[in-house]
């Protein structure tokens, strides 16, 4: 299978570059992950090796960012892929993206390791708002570039808050103490940072600070009442 090499979109998307074709090609990519996982479920070690090849850098990089130690980061990475090896069926039943799940768990496990906590992951769906599939390397690199750009475009306090929480594993209270801001403000900043990032990746205009809440609700089509800071 040579999709990864040059044109990740495959033949149909080349001839008519529509969103629909792209989605179709991407669905095939996700289906590839699904096929690999099904093979892993039957005990196919080569299939597991291919999943490792596809996602190991991504996972390792997150763990390294949190732990800053290559040995510890590799330990976390190995443990995560072992979990996939042991329970591939868990990923076949949801609608989430395997790649997205892997990086989220990589961060969580790394934080657990940082805090000497017992890992507590259950297998939950992790759904990427953008239609990008992470299995294709070129696609993934494009997405990563885009994320970095949008992240840097965030208001600095928002970016700082979310990075401290996410990569340093600081609690909201710890962040509030460090930055001298109220706890509620920290929570709001983190939520806004995530919403802004999501919308930016979807291609929409990032909402202004005052509108973010309402727009996010409209996008999701929910009627959940506004949350109060605890």
């Amino acid at each position: 299978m040579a999709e990864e090499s040059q044109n990740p979109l495959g033949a149909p998307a080349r001839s008519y570059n529509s969103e629909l074709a792209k989605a179709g090609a991407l669905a095939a990519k996700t289906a590839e992950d699904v096929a690999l996982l099904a093979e892993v479920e039957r005990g196919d070690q080569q299939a597991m090796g291919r999943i490792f090849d596809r996602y190991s850098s991504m996972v390792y990089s997150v763990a390294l960012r949190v732990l800053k130690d290559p040995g510890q980061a590799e330990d976390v990475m190995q443990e995560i892929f072992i979990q996939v090896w042991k329970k591939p069926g868990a990923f076949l039943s949801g609608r989430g993206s395997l790649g997205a799940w892997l990086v989220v768990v990589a961060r969580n496990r790394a934080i657990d390791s940082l805090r000497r906590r017992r890992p507590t992951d259950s297998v939950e769906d992790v759904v990427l708002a953008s239609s990008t599939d992470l299995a294709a390397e070129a696609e993934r690199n494009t997405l990563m570039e885009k994320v970095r750009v949008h992240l840097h475009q965030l208001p600095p306090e928002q970016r700082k808050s979310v990075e401290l929480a996410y990569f340093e594993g600081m609690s909201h209270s710890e962040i509030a103490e460090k930055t001298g801001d109220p706890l509620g403000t920290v929570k709001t900043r983190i939520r806004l940072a995530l919403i802004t990032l999501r919308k930016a990746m979807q291609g929409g205009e990032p909402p202004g600070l005052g509108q973010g809440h309402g727009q996010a609700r409209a996008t999701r089509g929910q009627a959940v009442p506004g949350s109060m800071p605890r």
Partner: protein
Amino acid sequence: MTIRLKEKQLNVNAQHISDEDLILYSMQSLSAGETATVELHLEECPECAANLAEIGGDFALLALSVDQQPAPAGARDRFLARIAAEPREAVSTYSMPQAEPRVVRESALREPARVIQATKPRRNWFPTLLPWAAAFAMLALAGYLGGSNQRLNDRLNQDKGQIAGLAAQAARAEEVLDALTSPEAKQVTLTEGKQAPPPTGRTSYLPGKGALVFVGNNLKPIPAGKTYELWVIPADGKAPIPAGLFRPDEHGSASVVLPKLPEGVPAKAFGVTIESAEGSPTPTMPIVLAGAAGL
């Protein structure tokens, strides 16, 4: 004494989880108790689960923003060596880890059929009113307990949020049952004037559920080795259905609560006969107490 026996939908988790709390949950920053509460809600709320999945997606984007480093040299080989050493067996479908279901006092819920032989000696007690309304309420409760036993058992495994509420209801039901049939409850027949009351029995019966409660007062004593037996006389003329054995205590009181009866049998009458101690599948004449159901 009236008892409302509607099923209560417990709204322990009626409120959706806020975005901020879902964010905290996704980052594993909640306390153990808060985490458990959120997970409980997520199990039964697809909306919040979907919201959480999207928040997870946002965090995935964040995770992808880090500088990419290739896995260290040899990592792949180490990984492959490890999975070669731990070959996969074909395992059945993964199931979400569940917290231990809280153990609830099930004794009240598991035994729908109980025959109470009121033969224990009673201590000295003072008279208490026996409201007939309590017996009817008892019967409604009996119907509820009988019919919902299976549902409750299923729910214990699935719906942790309702267990606490149902346990409270069961406790209340036990109280009612106790008031009606405990050896310590005072059974008093009220009569006009001063004549001694005759032997009487009162039966409450729900045909649909086959639920029955019988309370007898001022019953004549019967010899050792004998027992009273209650009968349901079906409306369709079929043979009388045995409905429990009872012996009066020294005050002449006895009760039968929720004996094992078939469901959906309308009754035209109830009767009591005297049988030998182990009871009888068919009544032995004479019928010493009888009452017509009269629709």
